[in-house]
């Protein structure tokens, strides 16, 4: 059934603001700029937009973005929860809306002044206790000083190291490769600033076993993309980038970054669930992927995802990165834009944009012969993924 969605919808427009630590303007302005840029890139008039999808945590209401672009009739709008786990979710929703005829032109956007306005890295602090579920749930962690995403991931990463013999340098190899790609990407915050493994090892602790250089940036910026049907896409100026699969996943005993109570905490079963759906919907397998955008808010989960998506056996991603297969020149270059470690942290949507560029053949660190690109979303949380490719 889901195979029928394969290739029915295409990404035909791509827009983004610059990425920075202080955008100097409002989030709604960033959202509007990115949406208008994506529509211009697609060659679609804003009045044609009849669908919008974004993250539940995005501060820019669909109605206001729609008003700013002069929209006329908005028939579909949806939001995906779970922070960065949402990254590919809006594309699944847009795909379903278009494939079912609910909407014709859907724009996905994510805009945030995450660095200059709030900073997720500061963690859960200063919130008055209330009986709402999320507050009671944070209560299992925050009184112990486990308040930040890095610290929640650290607990899982330490167990992963213990069980599989991965070491901090293995996480470092992910960071070094990402910063190498960022160094040659003019849009990246760390353009021209590669790092060495020694620098990774020497960087200060955030939450052991995570060094500073295991953690993604905090960024301001916005990214938007336009999706339409296969038929419509063929009439437009850009080479269509087809959605071959998209999926969401929440697995057994799932928590928000603290799924510490499962029999094993060294895997990411929600990512495995997304992977199975993607391979099934697309009819592809890991060997059909030429480059991947693996969500990299924290490096340890890049290894786990390589395993869950089938690029490495369980516990064997350490060999994958030791051989440099994820790095420039490897057989599966990962995060060729520099990732969220190197380019910017736009909650993974800048990673979808990189996948689109790789399929278009317009990436700054272009991989040759790209047919299919896998994109994953935030880890440790209910998550999502997609595969884009050429026809």
């Amino acid at each position, binding site marked *: 059934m889901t195979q029928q969605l394969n290739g029915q919808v295409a990404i035909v427009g791509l827009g983004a603001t610059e990425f920075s630590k202080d955008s100097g303007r409002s989030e709604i302005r960033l959202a509007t700029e990115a949406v208008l840029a994506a529509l211009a890139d697609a060659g679609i008039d804003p009045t044609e937009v009849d669908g919008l999808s974004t993250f539940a945590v995005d501060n820019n209401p669909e109605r206001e973005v729609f008003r700013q672009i002069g929209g006329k009739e908005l028939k579909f709008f949806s939001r995906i929860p779970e922070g960065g786990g949402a990254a590919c979710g809006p594309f699944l929703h847009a795909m379903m809306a278009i494939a079912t005829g609910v909407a014709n032109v859907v724009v996905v956007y994510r805009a945030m002044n995450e660095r200059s306005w709030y900073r997720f890295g500061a963690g859960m602090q200063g919130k008055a206790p209330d009986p709402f579920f999320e507050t009671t749930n944070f209560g299992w962690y925050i009184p112990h000083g486990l308040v930040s995403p890095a610290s929640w991931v650290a607990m899982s990463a*330490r167990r992963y190291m213990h069980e599989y013999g991965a070491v901090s340098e293995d996480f470092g190899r992910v960071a070094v490769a990402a910063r190498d790609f960022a160094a040659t990407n003019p849009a990246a915050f760390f353009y021209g600033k590669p790092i060495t493994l020694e620098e990774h090892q020497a960087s200060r*602790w955030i939450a*052991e076993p995570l060094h500073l250089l295991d953690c993604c940036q905090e960024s301001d910026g916005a990214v938007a993309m336009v999706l339409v049907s296969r038929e419509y896409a063929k009439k437009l100026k850009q080479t269509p980038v087809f959605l071959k699969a998209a999926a969401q996943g929440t697995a057994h005993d799932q928590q928000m970054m603290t799924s510490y109570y499962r029999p094993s905490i060294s895997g990411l079963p929600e990512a495995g669930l997304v992977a199975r759906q993607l391979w099934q919907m697309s009819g592809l397998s890991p060997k059909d992927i030429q480059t991947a955008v693996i969500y990299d808010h924290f490096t340890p989960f890049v290894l786990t995802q390589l395993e869950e998506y089938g690029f490495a056996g369980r516990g064997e991603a350490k060999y994958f990165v030791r051989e440099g297969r994820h790095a420039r020149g490897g057989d599966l270059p990962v995060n060729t834009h520099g990732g969220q470690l190197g380019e910017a942290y736009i909650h993974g949507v800048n990673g979808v944009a990189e996948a689109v560029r790789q399929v278009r053949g317009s990436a700054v660190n272009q991989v040759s012969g790209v047919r299919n690109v896998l994109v994953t979303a935030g880890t440790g949380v209910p998550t999502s993924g997609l595969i884009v490719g050429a026809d």
Partner: protein
Amino acid sequence: MSEQNLSWLDEARALIGHEYGKVYAWDAVNQPMVRQWCEAMGVDNALYLDGVSAKARFGANVAPPTMLQVWVLAGLNGRFPEGSATDNPYEVLQIIERNGYPSVVAVNSEQSYRRYLKEGEKIAFTSQIESVSEEKTTGLGTGFFVTQLLNFYDEADALVGQMRFRLFKFRAPERARPADKPRRPLPGISDENRFFWDGLKDRKLKIQRCTACNTLRHPPGPACPDCHSLASDSVEVSGRGRIYSYSVVHHPTLPGVPQPNPVGLIELTEGVRVVAGLVDVDPAHIEIGREVEVDYLECADELVIPVFRPVGGA
């Protein structure tokens, strides 16, 4: 107790039996004061109030014996009438205080009377320290019981009554004041998790149990994921377990949280896992699999959180 041998205590005890005074009353025993006192105390005995009964029996109005000390209290300005002694009957308390016992509380007061005091009599009193106890520890703290004996005399220097007044001069126990407790981020409390946080206040680590299938589960919630029963209670667990994973957190720094901050994911003997801080560990040498046991950390805002320390020391 070794404190008995302290020289300062000897100095204090040397004052036992020394007589202070005499101190005189401002006013003679008088009927208006008797009436006011009886009103305030709820005494309606005709002997003191009708102006007839006492005269018939004693030839004069008399005052309630319990008013003994009333006649010789200092004025609001703390002064006594001209001619009263100005020596300090509380030297002994000052000595004890200087040596680390700043607090004082009155313990009890016993009076005894030789006769009724008649209207128009003017009395005076002397005092002495009768005893200083050995160091004692009570619910209030640690210190010394001091007994003062007051002797009351009429104008002919005849004893009319006595009063023994006992004080406890002490220091409060060395317990952390609320301001000294670490202020931690507070959990949200709901019907599902209240038992856990309340249990910690009683130094009990409690875990939710499904009363239908007896499965323990943590974190708690309304339903049993195994059998779907909504019925549950909680049980106190052993507090023993092993470190399943851990992190030493360096950033962000939080007031009231150790820096760096070792936090463990503890697999309890009963099989469930809980997150809690690790204490008495070297952050550089934490071992997964290490056996640990629970302790309780009192925090500000009446929060108590579990912490775990290695069994048998670090």
